[in-house]
């Protein structure tokens, strides 16, 4: 299955989480998303969001200001 890439750079709280939620809501179970954001609060937020919603945070990669989260829809 193709990974869907989402670029939320430049956005700040709560938009990256809102946009992630909107995109994942429309997806099918097992779909994979690669979400990139340069907001410093994104990493803890996406961790908390996945924990609460049950979606799987497969990986999280930091490079410079950017945080990339790999999320699999539950």
């Amino acid at each position, binding site marked *: 299955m193709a990974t869907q890439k989402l670029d939320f750079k430049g956005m*700040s709280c709560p*938009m990256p989480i809102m946009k992630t939620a909107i995109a994942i809501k429309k997806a099918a179970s097992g779909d994979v998303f690669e979400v990139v954001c340069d907001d410093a609060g994104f990493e803890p937020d996406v961790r908390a*969001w996945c924990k*609460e919603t049950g979606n799987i945070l497969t990986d999280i990669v930091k490079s410079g200001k950017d945080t990339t989260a790999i999320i699999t829809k539950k």
Partner: protein
Amino acid sequence: MENQELSQKVQELQERIDKLEAKNSRLTMVLFSGDFDKVMAAFIIANGALAMGKEVTMFVTFWGLDAIKKPAIGTSGKTFLEKMVTWMRPNGPAKLPTSKMNFGGIGPKLFHYMMGKKNVESLSSLIEMAREFGLRIVACQMSMDVMGIRQEDLIDDIEFGGVAVFLNESYGSNTTLFV
């Protein structure tokens, strides 16, 4: 007989678990303040909870009503005091004062500018987004009556109610916030 009792007990427990889980998926908020910064915080939390798949009910009362007013409100048919209140209070999210550093209305302009620079979503669009996500807004009828605010003065597609509506929601949620 024993088997029947056991399955009945299991069913009872299942119902109790369902009820508890439903509680966990709901957030109830009271928006009392009409200060721009506090209303902003309230709608960021509401949006976050909605993004987590929660059902959110916001009970809007007193100064909080300023945040859900239409941009222009008529005064015809209102008493003198009601007209005074209508003129003196801001209409809608773009006109709210800040709780600190208001400086007679210059403060909010400064904050709007700074928020724009940091790409923070405007309060108006946070409200719109939350409503698209299914935020339930209940306006307090009693405080509307006190201040001469009519149902048509507030944004469309909201509900109206009293303290029992709020409490009923609150008892059914595991989190209640007062802003």
